[in-house]
């Protein structure tokens, strides 16, 4: 390659890399924001009847993930005739990120499973998680245990999800 072409290529390369990095920095921030909104969706008893409504605002903080590793932490409150309690599972480390779920138990039944953290180390992992999580949730609600099939193509996420769930159920003596 002649010198002029080589120089032009080098300049173009630098420009393209810079442009990519610039637009990537923007996405990296939104990615972080998404994670925050996922982990901030705290659920208290009573509001859990309606199904998985993840409407926590991104700004409302990181406080909920304080009780991490080891045993699950519970925060049950009772309202009226029915008793709803939530239990956080352990944080399970995987190569694709950390997984932690929260289970809501009402009247001796699993009524809700909420992911506090899901694998999101790479964009594809986040995508797999968002596909697998709803399926796992409905299977768990149907089986009323953590003893369900893992999702094909999302083995790692499923295993971590169910491990965390089992820890939460153990904590609930379910």
């Amino acid at each position, binding site marked *: 390659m002649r010198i002029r072409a080589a120089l032009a290529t080098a300049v173009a390369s630098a420009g393209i890399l810079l442009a990519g*990095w610039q*637009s*990537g920095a923007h996405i990296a921030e939104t990615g972080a924001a998404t994670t925050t909104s996922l982990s901030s969706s705290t659920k208290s008893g009573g509001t859990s009847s309606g199904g998985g409504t993840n409407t926590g605002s991104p700004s409302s903080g990181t406080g909920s993930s304080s009780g991490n590793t080891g045993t699950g932490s519970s925060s049950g409150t009772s309202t009226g005739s029915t008793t709803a309690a939530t239990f956080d599972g352990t944080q399970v480390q995987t*190569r694709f990120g950390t997984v932690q779920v929260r289970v809501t138990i009402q009247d001796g039944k699993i009524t809700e499973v909420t992911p506090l953290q899901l694998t999101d180390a790479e964009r594809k992992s986040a995508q797999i998680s968002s596909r697998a999580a709803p399926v796992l949730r409905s299977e768990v609600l149907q089986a009323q245990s953590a003893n369900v099939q893992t999702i094909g193509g999302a*083995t790692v996420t499923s295993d971590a999800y169910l491990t965390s769930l089992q820890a939460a159920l153990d904590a609930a003596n379910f």
Partner: protein
Amino acid sequence: MTSLLNPDTSADSMPAPPPAGRPPAVDRFRTQSRRRLARADLLGAVGWLSGVAAVALWLADGGASGFSSFAGTMTALGIVAGLIGMDLVLLMLLLAARIPVVDNAIGHDRALEIHKSLGKPALYLLLAHGLFVAIGYGAAEGLDPLSESISLWINVPDMWLAFVSMALFIAVVVTSLVAVRRKFPYEFWYVVHLLTYAAVGTAIPHQFSVGGLFAEGTWQRWYWLALCIGTGLALAWFRVYQPLAASFRHQLTVSRVVRVSPDVFSIEMTGRNLERLSGAGGRFFLWRFLAPGQWWQSHPFSLSAEPVPGDRNRPGKLRITVRNLGEGSARLARIRPGTKVAIEGPYGLFSTAARSRDDVVMIGAGIGITPLRSLLETTPFEPGHATVLIRGHDESELFLGQEIMALCQARGVTLFHLLGPRSHGDHAWLPRDVAQAGFGLHSYVQGIADADVYVCGPSPWAASVIRDVELAGVPAEQLHYERFDW
């Protein structure tokens, strides 16, 4: 003229002298060369930028966010290595796809040279990809890289395929190393090389399921889809469809085999639509003679005469001239008239398409003389503006020497026969007595620095010629060298 393949038409195909008052053809070749070099530069830039784009798109999809931790950094480095490695592998496939745009810009042999030079870097990048990702994933889970690799193999779907792919890539590159390649027959290397397709095929599933290359909603998805599909289509079109189409279009059939010297023979073929191959003189085809025990071998040979288009009364004619170099070409000498021939080509830049100047110098030795013979027939130049030097141990080694002499007489070319035992030292390409007497390139050709120089012959000999040609001040773009013993 009697021994010429096409005595009547070769006179017709001679270019008419340019009418007075018109600017000389100098601009034609200079412009052609400038455009060709610009295309070559553009292709080079596209090649580089494809790798850059792979990394840039990964960054654009948020790749840099992983650099915050050790594990993330290792994984990110591994991913970048994998992306560039994959890009190089696809570039290598494209370089070997015999795409006309590439062939016309840099020539088939240069494309394969670049292809070869990318082999090891691509393999190292893919190995680094595996290593860094294993370290990165392992660090995220508190495992050492080896246990992490085993766990990936067992637990993550499609990952075992990726390991198989890695092994295949290693096999392909190792069997292509010069030292290893010499130990095995060509066919063994070829079959192992075909495994490249399996290697790419087994690498793709984990890029879908584990990596984010094809994740929905990303830029990378479209880039890699386009690159993979484009490469696949280019291979299917130019390496499978085009050769089949050319073979059917031309319907080549061996008409006779003529012995030129004890170990050199010409194979003449008849065929249809040969006007479409005009200007292919000097370029090469891969020939596959469809006879029992032969059809599975294809041989690269240059045309030794410009194709003669047929008309209503007689079929078109085509000729190659072959030296008995190996077992394969020995069998060719006994090929029967009537044998059908499948072709791939024409390929290469040993043609008028490479011209950049008005004057032409051709230097050939041994069987390398024969492509010059067909180039000499058609490439345009004015009388007195071409010089041909042909080298052989004795007269009998100047294959097609009679034809070349007749062409030189008809077109006003200065012809030198360089005969005698070889010399050693600086001018090894010249006969010993000539070199000892102090003659050199300048003794034969005046003004070579402003001429196109075509060199064809055995590589050590050609290397010696090229050294002298470069010393005479001929720039690289005017030097055209065909390697025919790869």
